[in-house]
């Protein structure tokens, strides 16, 4: 073909490749758009171009029209971010980071620091009223019961501020904390326990369950009150996992700090124990929750995939453990030794498996087809169910020997709650793996189930102490 003619045709009735390439590069700079999205959008642009050129427009004119019809790319990537919020979680921001003025970052840091300091000081408020924290003498029962109430309300305030709620609409979130404060402190455990120093069973249950119950209120503030929208609950699950990881890291550092404080002051002949035990540890533990939350919020990209990575590592390992346990039990025929700890160990096992499933789901792209890891997850769930089933059968066989103690009722009920979750998860997983159902169903089930844990925990806090006579 004639060179000049070829040039001319490519100029007038061919798609302008160079401009398309530029447009594509521009789309790539939006980190919320994945390559496959860009490919899809480019396919659309090319179809549109072909139609316009076919209608008689020149290539570059057609390009202008087609791009215009595509609409604003800001709005488009904003929409994509809303649909794929797990990407946003990784990418942190809809807009490029440079567009965020440094001032808001500084302002947020000041707000976070003041809330953290407030949390740290809140721990010392009871001391003003004569309830001192003395780690050497006795179990700090008051502090164990109430530690949630020093921190969670302030964490809630942080999220209310961050999500731009006004004080009025956030005020009713104070209600669960007020209720929690009442039920953590009104019951007469002191007298009922006989010995004042000892922790009674129901008191211990309150200590363990109050945080779970109130975490739901924090979650409500975290999602800005829109509990059912836009994958907010799944983001809260991600947040909770990353917060735990950050908190453990900070706690490790804090432990080292405490150790050095003791050691160095001892070197000059002074005992810093009162400071470390009375101030540094409790105040630091409270403030660190706020700081860790802020870190999760602000630095998502640094550690973004920690929880999913840990999930990927431990899912196969725990599956192997459970299968080996089942095989050994079947081989040797030795029955499960039903003692006090078995129920609690089983609960912890189920919590762990639910956690592994939850975090695997939270990190998964719901559009991916079934893969090997999905099958492994199903195997994990099924083997956990098998172990739990065997153990529950053993416990049921001897249930008459048990009295109804608060610990056993709580542990059995929690076992049931987790069991229901896992049975239905296994069913949904199996459907998904056989291509009979969407992955989204599994995600929906898990997030819909979240309040169940907190509601049960609240029941334990409110009903158990009077029900069991403050034992």
């Amino acid at each position, binding site marked *: 073909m004639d060179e000049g003619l070829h040039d001319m045709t490519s100029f007038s009735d061919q798609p302008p490749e160079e401009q398309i390439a530029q447009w594509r590069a521009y789309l790539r700079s939006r980190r919320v758009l994945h390559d*496959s*999205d860009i*490919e*899809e*959008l480019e*396919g*659309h642009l*090319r*179809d*549109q171009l072909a139609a316009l050129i076919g209608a008689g427009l020149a290539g570059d004119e057609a390009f202008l029209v087609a791009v215009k*019809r*595509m*609409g*604003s*790319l800001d*709005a*488009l990537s904003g*929409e*994509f971010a*809303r*649909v*794929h919020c797990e990407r946003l979680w990784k990418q942190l921001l809809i807009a490029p980071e440079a567009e965020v003025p440094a001032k808001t970052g500084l302002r947020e840091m000041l707000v976070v620091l003041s809330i953290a300091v407030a949390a740290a000081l809140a721990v010392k408020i009871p001391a003003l009223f004569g309830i001192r924290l003395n780690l050497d003498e006795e179990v700090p029962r008051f502090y164990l019961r109430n530690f949630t109430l020093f921190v969670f309300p302030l964490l809630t305030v942080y999220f209310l501020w961050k999500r731009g709620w006004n004080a009025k609409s956030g005020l009713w979130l104070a209600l669960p904390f007020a209720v929690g404060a009442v039920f953590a402190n009104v019951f007469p455990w002191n007298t009922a326990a006989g010995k004042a120093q000892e922790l009674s069973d129901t008191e211990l249950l309150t200590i363990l369950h109050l945080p779970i119950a109130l975490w739901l209120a924090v979650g409500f503030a975290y999602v800005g009150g829109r509990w059912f929208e836009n994958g907010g609950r799944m983001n809260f699950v991600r947040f909770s996992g990353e917060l735990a990881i950050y908190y453990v890291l900070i706690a490790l550092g804090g432990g080292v700090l405490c150790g050095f404080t003791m050691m160095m002051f001892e070197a000059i002949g002074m005992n810093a124990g009162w400071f470390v035990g009375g101030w540094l540890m409790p105040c630091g533990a409270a403030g660190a929750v706020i700081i860790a939350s802020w870190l999760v919020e602000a630095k998502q990209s640094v550690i973004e995939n920690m929880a999913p990575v840990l999930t990927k590592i431990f899912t196969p390992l725990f599956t192997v453990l459970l299968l080996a346990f089942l095989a050994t039990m079947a081989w040797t025929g030795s029955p499960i030794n039903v003692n006090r700890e078995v129920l609690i160990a089983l609960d912890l096992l189920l919590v762990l498996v639910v956690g592994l499933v939850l975090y695997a789901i939270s990190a998964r792209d*719901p*559009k991916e087809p079934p893969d090997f890891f999905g099958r492994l997850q199903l195997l994990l769930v099924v083997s956990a169910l098998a172990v739990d089933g065997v153990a529950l059968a053993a416990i049921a066989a001897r249930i008459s020997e048990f009295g109804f103690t608060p610990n056993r009722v709580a542990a059995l009920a929690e076992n049931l709650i987790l069991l229901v979750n896992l049975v239905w998860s296994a069913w949904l997983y199996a459907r998904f793996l056989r291509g009979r*159902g*969407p*992955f*989204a*169903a599994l995600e929906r089930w898990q997030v819909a189930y979240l309040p169940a844990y907190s509601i049960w925990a609240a029941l334990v806090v409110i009903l158990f102490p009077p029900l069991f006579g403050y034992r």
Partner: protein
Amino acid sequence: MDLNKDLVAASATPLVLALLAQGDSYGYAIIKRVAELSGGQLQWTDGMLYPVLHRLERQGLVAAKWSVLENGRRRKYYRITPEGRAQLASLQKQWQVVDGTLRYVWMRACTT
């Protein structure tokens, strides 16, 4: 006539599902079909269809598959799932309620 933005947004899901219920399709073809059926009155910003399609895919209402065209490019085809059909039936009922009510009100407004 410019259609109200909210109305366009609200009708996007039932329209997309209804079109896919007639047969598998892809983004560009869906937009063309909608413009055709509405006599050009229902114009979407082209790009905005894709987040809608992806949302439906995430919810499991449609399933997507890439297929390779003759010219070597790939195109993403969407297919309605059984869940999608159920959702469509429910949306249909909801829209019929709205439509029926409005018709009734307007008819009375005309006669009186």
